[in-house]
């Protein structure tokens, strides 16, 4: 248990309280779970308008050095050398056994002023461990600069581009999964066209002492409403995105996590991914279990930890995230099943409070992703 006074506050804490947020401990920080309109309304607002999220708890760091992309490839399965300037890639930090230590966004900066540095965004709960691991494994080749003085906002939803363009006209022409420095309302930001909600949108790395000013400016726009962690979770679950510590952890490899797309072609051919023996075997023969979506037949949600049964009652897996999908209009879940049961349409049962409930395996995501490519 973490005592309340040990929790960090983001620079937007006072604004959250002013907006009536219910503040809860999350990954060592006091974060807004929801605002007075509630999770359902915030979720729907993000799917139809634009939601503003404080994600300042996440870790941001520069990895400075020479040939950083090549060095960092020793810790991830992705092809980082092929990243264009300004391009962002979603990848996973792996241990030597191919287990996932974190998922992260890696960006090659658009302007190469110092060596070949890369920008990373990490999960809040994993940042310290990740930076220690990367620092140790890249020792002598790279220096990490943890950006404590930067906050992170996410502006997500179909109206996000229209809103952000009013403050930064270049935002409208940004490509999906690209990032660049940009003044937003005269505030120097790093803007990326990325997100976790399945909608079009942006993430803005902002100087901590100016983030409240920017958040207030954005919230004045008619399309923008503040959105908390509760809706962030239901949005990402509908979008089929993993939550570290639930859907992926150091016991899961990228192949069983249905993230094989992260393993670069060049990396497969060179067989130089971390945990190569495990990962290449899983790629060649298929993993023993796979991450899939579940659609319960009834209205009852099945949550993290619910056991998955085959129709004959044999235990075949576990739910790792589950709840109610507001856009789906019913319960949704994801988790792992033995590969023989991973095909879409397979009938399974999810055990909720001791009672098996019928469900079907479905393809992820639950809601089509709304990313746009201008």
């Amino acid at each position, binding site marked *: 248990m973490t005592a309340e006074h040990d929790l960090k506050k983001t620079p937007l804490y006072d604004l959250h309280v002013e907006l009536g947020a219910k503040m809860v401990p999350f990954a060592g920080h006091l974060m807004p779970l929801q605002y007075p309109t*509630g999770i359902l309304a915030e*979720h729907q607002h993000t799917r139809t308008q634009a939601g503003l999220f404080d994600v300042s708890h996440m870790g941001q760091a520069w990895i400075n050095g020479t040939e950083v992309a090549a060095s960092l490839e020793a810790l991830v399965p992705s092809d980082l050398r092929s990243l264009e300037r300004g391009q962002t890639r979603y990848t996973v930090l792996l241990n030597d056994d191919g287990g996932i230590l974190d998922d992260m966004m890696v960006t090659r900066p658009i302007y190469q002023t110092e060596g070949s540095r890369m920008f990373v965004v990490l999960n809040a709960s994993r940042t310290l461990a990740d930076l220690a691991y990367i620092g140790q494994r890249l020792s002598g080749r790279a220096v990490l600069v943890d950006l404590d003085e930067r906050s992170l906002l996410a502006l997500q939803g179909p109206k996000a581009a229209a809103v952000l363009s009013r403050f930064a006209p270049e935002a409208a022409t940004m490509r999906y999964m690209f990032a660049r420095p940009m003044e937003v309302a005269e505030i120097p930001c790093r803007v990326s066209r990325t997100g976790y909600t399945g909608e079009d949108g942006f993430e803005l790395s902002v100087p901590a002492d100016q983030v409240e000013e920017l958040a207030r400016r954005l919230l004045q726009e008619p399309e923008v409403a503040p959105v908390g962690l*509760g809706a962030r979770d239901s949005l990402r679950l509908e979008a089929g995105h993993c939550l570290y510590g639930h859907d992926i952890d150091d016991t899961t490899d990228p192949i069983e996590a249905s993230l094989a797309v992260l393993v670069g072609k060049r990396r497969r051919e060179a067989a130089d991914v971390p945990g190569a023996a495990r990962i290449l075997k899983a790629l060649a023969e298929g993993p023993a279990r796979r991450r899939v979506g579940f659609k319960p037949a009834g209205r009852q*949600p099945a949550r993290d930890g619910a056991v998955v049964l085959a129709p004959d009652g044999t235990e075949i897996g576990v739910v790792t995230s589950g709840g*109610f999908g507001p856009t789906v209009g019913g319960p949704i879940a994801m988790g792992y099943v033995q590969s023989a049961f991973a095909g879409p349409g397979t009938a399974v049962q999810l055990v909720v*409070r001791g009672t098996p409930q019928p469900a079907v395996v479905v393809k992820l995501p639950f809601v089509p992703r709304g990313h746009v490519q201008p």
Partner: protein
Amino acid sequence: MSVKYTEDHEWIRVDGTTGRVGITDYAQSQLGDVVFVDLPAAGRALVGGGEAAVVESVKAASEVYAPVAGTVTAANQAVADDPSLVNSDPEADGWFYEMAIADPAELDRLMDKAAYDRFVAGLD
């Protein structure tokens, strides 16, 4: 007719030896948007303080306890069909179930409205 309250934020509206049970406005405000309610079937025996129903919000599942011992006589189909009634009208149309009360003397251990309001005021 009287209404009594538990420290677990259930209310029971008592009429003779029958009671109608739901959760309080404070409880629904803490739960947030309710998306599913699992109600007990008529005929089910309830233990005072034992689990009687489950209410699921977007973020979590919570148990609803029986204020006193007895037997379920009816469940509110309207709230099963439209769980948002728990948020919009928790202490009237959003009721969960009706029960035959085994021992009305048990009700004396519960709080009245004034005591419950003081209890809630004392929680943060």
